[in-house]
């Protein structure tokens, strides 16, 4: 499961807005001016010169200056957990396949075969090189895949490998000791065999992620624990290479001339300014010091669009209240279907997103408006409204009355419910609004416990909470992906602490995980969505968080894959 306290990132088509071009002088305009100054005027006959006498004007390097929200924790893909780090890794590295615009396309593997049972993959690697010119072979993938589950290490992403690679868990936890039994082998320099844990469409999306890029042994081994901590301690095989990392200041990437598809890469340099967020980044954009930034603040978005920047938005996470597990003392209430329904119907999501959570979209179901279906958006192919976004206070009261009747309690006997959250001003305002809604509509009292991030997660992982205000990951493909939130509700997972169980959910989830048929997957997801919305086991969904990308009109549009993707951007 992937929780995001603030916002995660998502994979679906976004929406783009453009205003009138910015009035400030842009790089393209400067290039045009330079070109114009060097051109022979139209009214003058062209001078008769030999080619040697005419010196071509060198093209200005195409540079994109972008914001980076915070200091990357590491550039080691096996310890990368945040989207800042993952984006940088995916700019400078490429795995077997690439997630381009939400679809899987060949990466280092130019083709592959999948066995009939969907478990065995044979990847045929193209001729490719590391940024330093050495040849990249299948052994580099074997090295990386073995490294992530090295039992002598404790890489953060190792657990993710359990769901992907055959025998990953067994090898990592020491149940097997022969690394040859791990589900990866180099047949020859350009043929890689991979055995998956389960069949399904997820495998390739997972292999497109940052965890499954190759690693250059000749860089990683000498670096040891320092791998990923500095620019000189990373290996690059992707469209760009990281050439500088000034901590707390900037990361610089330059076009990798040894990348196999370099002709389709048009930016020569990308400079990422660390900690450039919010109004700081917006002021940099307005001053012409930045070309590209991300924000979830709709006011900043509006400010930049008004100033002439283009924008692109997508759903980055689902904001919801998650109910605590079996040791909260409030279980008897949360397990009551009517109680949960009452709590769900009492929330006026529209009021929250109109005032406090600007930029968010109020949710009336789990699937967000732009989530991909089979051929069209999911919400078009599977229309559904689970509840009104304005809340249904009368229905909420009726449900609460039924709940109290079943439980043999009065409203005054309902204990105070404590909401755990990350200590940000925005979260506090939101939960205070909900406090007010619950008190006025149902007579339920909420208290708030804001905590620093690690202290908050400690309580979450030890299940010491009543409700938790959290962002839920929307997954690589959709919310049924292994890195989406759906796995959190599978009680068959080790570590599941909830009390909700549903056999039909389990049956449908198994289909999602194993089917290779996209229609069958989406059908099952829809059925699961109805179950979750009607039973409300462990969560109350409030809104979809929108992330905005704002960028200079001098550039072509970014793409959207797992995250916003600037790889193929160019100066117009």
């Amino acid at each position, binding site marked *: *499961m992937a929780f995001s306290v603030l916002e995660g990132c998502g994979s679906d088509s976004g929406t783009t807005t453009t205003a009138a071009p910015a009035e400030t002088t842009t790089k393209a305009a400067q290039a045009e001016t330079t070109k114009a100054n060097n051109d022979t005027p139209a009214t003058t006959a062209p001078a008769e010169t030999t080619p040697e006498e005419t010196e071509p004007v060198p093209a200005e390097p195409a540079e994109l200056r972008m914001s980076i929200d915070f*200091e990357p*924790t*590491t550039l*080691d893909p096996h*310890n990368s957990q945040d989207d800042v780090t993952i984006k940088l890794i995916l700019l400078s590295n490429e795995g077997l396949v690439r997630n381009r615009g939400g679809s899987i396309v060949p990466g280092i593997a130019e083709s592959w075969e999948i066995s009939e049972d969907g478990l065995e993959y044979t990847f045929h690697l193209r001729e490719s090189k590391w940024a330093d010119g050495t040849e990249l072979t299948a052994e580099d993938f074997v090295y990386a895949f073995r490294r992530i589950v090295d039992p002598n290490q*404790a890489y*953060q992403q*190792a*657990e*993710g490998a359990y769901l992907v690679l055959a025998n990953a868990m067994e090898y*990592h*936890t*020491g149940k097997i000791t022969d690394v040859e039994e791990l589900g990866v082998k180099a047949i020859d320099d350009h043929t890689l065999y991979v055995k998956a844990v389960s069949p399904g469409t997820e495998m390739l999306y997972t292999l497109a992620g940052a965890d499954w890029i190759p690693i250059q042994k000749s860089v990683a081994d000498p670096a040891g*624990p*320092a*791998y*990923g*901590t500095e620019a000189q301690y990373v290996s690059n095989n992707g469209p760009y290479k990281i050439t500088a990392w*000034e*901590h*707390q*200041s900037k990361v610089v990437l330059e076009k990798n001339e040894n990348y196999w598809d370099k002709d389709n890469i048009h930016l020569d340099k990308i400079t990422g*300014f*660390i*900690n*450039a967020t919010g*109004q*700081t980044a917006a*002021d*940099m954009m*307005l*001053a012409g*010091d930045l070309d590209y930034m991300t924000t979830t603040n709709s006011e900043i978005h509006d400010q930049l669009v008004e100033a002439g920047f283009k924008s692109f938005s997508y759903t980055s996470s689902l904001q919801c209240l998650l109910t605590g597990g079996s040791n909260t003392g409030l279980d008897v209430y949360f397990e009551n279907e009517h109680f949960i329904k009452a709590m769900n119907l009492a929330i006026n999501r529209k009021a929250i997103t109109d005032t406090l959570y600007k930029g968010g979209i109020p949710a009336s179901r789990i699937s967000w408006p732009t989530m991909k279906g089979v051929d069209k958006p999911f919400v078009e192919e599977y229309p559904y409204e689970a509840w009104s976004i304005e809340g249904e206070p009368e229905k909420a009261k009726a449900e609460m009355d039924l709940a109290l009747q079943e439980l043999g309690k009065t409203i005054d006997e309902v204990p105070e419910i404590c909401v755990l959250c990350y200590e940000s001003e925005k979260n506090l305002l939101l939960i205070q609004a909900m406090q007010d809604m619950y008190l006025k509509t149902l007579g339920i009292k909420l208290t708030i416990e804001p*905590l*620093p*991030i*690690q*202290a*908050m*997660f*400690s*309580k979450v*992982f*030890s299940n010491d909470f009543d409700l938790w205000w959290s962002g839920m990951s929307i997954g690589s493909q959709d919310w049924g992906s292994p890195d989406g939130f759906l796995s959190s509700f599978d009680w068959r997972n080790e*570590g599941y602490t909830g009390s909700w169980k549903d056999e039909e959910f389990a049956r449908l989830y198994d289909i999602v995980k194993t089917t290779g048929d996209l229609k069958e997957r989406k059908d099952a997801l829809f059925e699961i969505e109805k179950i979750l919305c009607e039973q409300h086991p462990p969560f109350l969904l409030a809104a979809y968080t929108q992330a905005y990308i704002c960028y200079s009109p001098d550039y072509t549009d970014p793409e959207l894959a797992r995250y916003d993707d600037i790889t193929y951007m160019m100066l117009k």
Partner: protein
Amino acid sequence: MLKYVIKRLIFSVLTILVLITATFFLMKALPGDPFQNDKVPKEVQMRQKAYYGLDKPVVVQYFQYLNNLIHGDLGTSMKNFGREVTSYIREGFPVSASLGLAAFFAGQFISWPLGILASQFRNKAPDYLVVFIAVCGIALPEMVIGPVLRYVLGVKLKALPVTGWGTWQHYVMPVMVMLFGSTGMAVRSHRANLLSVSTQDYMKTARAKGMSPAKVVFKHQLRNASVPWFTGIPGTLARLMTGSMVIENIFLIPGMGKHLVNALDALDYPVVMGLTLFYGTMMIVANFISDMMYGIVDPRIRIH
């Protein structure tokens, strides 16, 4: 005097030790565990803890930490995997220090003239104006002044770079923001000290002797009023040089200011311990130097 110095030195070392001990045990008392994560199997979490020595009893961890300190090892970050704590200081401190020094020296050129002006025209218009300016500077928070200056001077007028570090232009706005608060307090302090000295007998004697007002101020008044300021320099510098999280965030300055707050949020024990120790040691050393300077500049205070 020597006895006094040695006594103060021993006291300073003991204070540092108390600082280390208090910080260490307070960190351990904080709720949460940096490695608790339901995505990671228990045996792997145990391995992570063992790597950082967190599987041992707290007292053992404490003495291990002291031993590492003696060898100059402040440990590695638990969040920025593999980064040594000393690298945070090595990279960030020179930036924060240079910004602090610039603000300090700039502040002297502003605070002293204003303080002298206010003291010479006590309870008259110039005095009221200076005090008003000083109070405004103290009252306005950095997180308000900073973005406003950045927008006006950087975005609208394009007179200075909006953010970043590396040229003299990058110093201007951050130093201006730092000056608002610190200079305001300095002006009031200088004014008070100058006024306090102005009522002394030797001041009346100097005026009675026919000494010019300027000479009275610079030869007698300023010299005696500056003793508290002079002896407070080490402490002031230590505070300014350790960085301001707010200013560094506003202007994207790669200093040390924000590391401690971020490390506390993430329960990154080695970074919290290392930076607290660094800051604390700086302040303790600064106080020690201040104590020594008192004895040097004012014979009345010198202890034999």
